[in-house]
């Protein structure tokens, strides 16, 4: 297999890596670029800890080849903060107690972000259904759901009903 140069746009910055084309995006993020906020819980696309966003959509980076992501805008947990400020989702995860061991948290937050970007006011049921693709062994998901519902509620109170 021949190594090739791959250019990736991650968190609004271009990165060039020289890799085998069979490298997953997860491997490149963690091992080549030291972006270790994205986790590897299973390596087979089940647990959701490696969730990142490409062009705003949630993607399992362990099931995505880095070469496939070349012309996409990639967002990882490291790229969420704006000017050093936490996003409302991150704030809500803290204040609602949605974080325990923290291993699922980055993937969970990015999955939740993609849901809210797509649908600003999902119902509680829709939130739960959406989260079912991201596993958590610590929380029972209750406080994760609460955190997401809090962001939805806060947005509504700022912008008024959709």
């Amino acid at each position, binding site marked *: 297999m021949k190594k090739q140069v791959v250019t990736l746009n991650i968190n609004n910055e271009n990165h060039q890596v020289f890799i085998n084309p069979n490298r997953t995006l997860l491997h490149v993020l*963690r091992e080549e670029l*030291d*972006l*270790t*906020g*994205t*986790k*590897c*819980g*299973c*390596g*087979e696309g*089940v*647990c959701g*800890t490696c969730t990142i966003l490409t062009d705003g959509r949630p993607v399992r980076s362990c099931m995505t080849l880095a070469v496939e992501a070349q012309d996409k805008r990639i967002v*990882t*947990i*490291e790229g*969420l*903060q704006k000017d050093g400020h*936490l996003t409302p989702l*991150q704030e809500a*995860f*803290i*204040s609602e*107690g949605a*974080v*325990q*061991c*923290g*291993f*699922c*948290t*980055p993937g969970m*937050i990015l999955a939740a972000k993609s849901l809210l970007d797509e649908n600003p006011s999902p119902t*509680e049921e829709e939130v*739960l*259904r959406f*989260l*079912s*693709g*991201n*596993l*958590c*062994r*610590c*929380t*029972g*998901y*209750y*406080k*994760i*759901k609460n955190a997401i519902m809090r962001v939805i509620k806060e947005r509504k109170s700022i912008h008024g009903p959709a």
Partner: protein
Amino acid sequence: MGQHKIIGKPILRVDAPLKVTGKACYVDDLKLPGMLHGKVLRSNVPHAVIEKIDVSGAYRIPEVKAVVTGSDFPYRHGLLIRDEPFLAQGRVRYIGEAVAAVAAANEEAALKGADSIRVTYKPLPPVFDPQQAIQAGAPLIHEELASYRRSEVCQPIIDSNICSHFKLRKGDVEKAFKEADYVLENTYTTSFNQHGALEPHSAIALFDQSGKITVWTGNDGPHRCLREIGISMSIPFSNIRIISAFQGGGFGSKGGLRAEAIAVALASKVKHRPVKVTYTREEVFTSTLLRHPVSIRSKVGVMKDGKIIAKKIELFWNTGAYGEKGPWVCRNASMSSSGPYNIPNVWIDGYCIYTNNPIAGPMRGFGVPQVAFAYESQMDEIAHKLNIDPLEVRLKNVLDRNDETAWGERIISIGLKECLRKVAGEIRLSKPGKDRNCGKGIACMQKFTTTLQGVTSAIVKYNHDGSLDILTSSMEVGQGVMTVLSQFASEELNIPLERIRVSSADTDYTPFDASTTGSRSTYHMGNAVILACRDIKQQAVSMASELLALPKRELKFKEGKVVSKRGHEISMVELINRYYDGARGGGGDLIGRATFHTKSGTGLDSETGRGKRPAAFWMYGAQAVEIEVDRDTGKVNIRKLCTAHDVGKVINPLSCEQQMEGALAMGIGFALFEKVDINQGQIMNPSLASYSIPTSCDLPQDVNIFFVEEPHPEGPYGAKGLAEPATAPTAAAIANALFDATGIRMREVPLTPEKIEAALRKESKKEP
């Protein structure tokens, strides 16, 4: 007791900001200079003699730096019984056992190296079923059993597959059975589970030029891990250093030596370069730990009024190929298997049995979810037999303060009756369900904390800028220990939380603590930190006395200052700086230290299972559910769940809720669907796709959590532990509700739709 400022408040977790930004560092996130990667070749047969290992193929791969086998690294480990080789030595005992490991410059090369090793096995007859394993003539899995070093917890029966036999004898059960109005006898069974922590096991080991071994790991007991390596390899403890990182969940699976064993063995061969070993998800299933399946035969004698007078219980714990903490799980859970009830005559035999299955160990609840399923299912069988309300039969028998337990301990703190009444009231247990598909059920539990492992120490460092460092070896495993320890220090010393930093464990610098297991840290480390803060206060008073030329008796520590009766006051920062001459550019810190040595830990008599105070504290809780059964599919839908727990004192309501919610989610998985399917020693579903842990759609949304605060006289601010209990009563509560709805008694978990549907079908055929 006065009003607290920080204790009892829903303080936000101090580790959360790092975790929501992806900055929290877990072992696999570490990259050290010159680091190699390790991969393992594992046994694909359940029981065999290793005739030959040909490693030459691995060395033909240029990036491969070292290969290690059991003969190169001939050590064994095991906290309770030293039976487990770092890598197989001449024999394999389960599918998934490490036979050889390879260190290479990158993971692919290591994997290729491991794949190119050839092993010749001579098969031995395997045994998988624990009850077959204890029959005469069964293949012996550990012929050397008698020669293994072991702790007194482990009581093997030599020349058998019984790794440990726990006995409890109280009163005269046979006589009581004759006097009883009714005698019931039932068998309950549970399945293999896996912890399913989202972070796979990972460790990095380095043998450096000075001869020191350093291991980076998320192990739940850094000092215990050090000790195990030191004892196994016969090297001084000062030559070993364990540096911990955040743990991405463990639930009991990250104690002992798992990935650590492989990393250390490899590092010994590639001197001076660190080796990282991160398990795949499949290896987490096959080669870390599982929850013990257990078969429980329980005979109970009751009087017409519902009073239980005798219980005789036999428990067969399938511990797999090596002991690990199996003897402990067997002892601690078997001893409590007559339930939180006052029963005058009890006879218990718990057998921890070797089989050629993957290794079983502790998993959230340490065997208690299994035994609670049995004793609480049987409570309802008694209630049904005598036509007594399930709550009433429990209240009639449940332990109270000053009662004597089966093992001979006088109860000093228990709030279980209140827990039972609370959940029964919430669920309206005595009222029938909505319709014929609905049922209600209740169950309770008792569990003790990890004790008998030595002391718990803490160092608290008051810096001369007014900030505080808490140095402990407690592990942040997700339970929030950093937050609760900060709260104790903040309350004691009147320092704002944001000025407090809690260390992660590093055995070179943080003092001894046995482990972060068994719901023990709030109580044990909490006490140690509080004592260390009080040491600081005492020192501060002495220093102020010297500085202000006032007698100590006229001074006291109050709200972060030292004050005198005559109105002097000096802040801690001023005190430290003036005392240490900080005004002239010097500086210093005030170091408080403490060792908490619990008064408990009397152990248990090996013949009678009796002990006056085997654990520092006991945890009690009750749960009630209302379920709906789909009679066509057998699926159980939990409509409502209430859980109430005696936690002594709520130190942080938010953290307490977090623990309860997580524990009951795990209890629901245990009750309804989690099962590691093992066929002839081979795990058939070693993946999170085929072994289901609860998703957000599998859990009830109508959940109510209640805390009962029956203070513990020796607990920090009265607190006990709470991480495990809510996992334990769920399965029995659901099974009891299922009986209430359908009249069908299920005595085997998980209660899968297939099993329920089959039972319903069978039942409907019986009906005319």
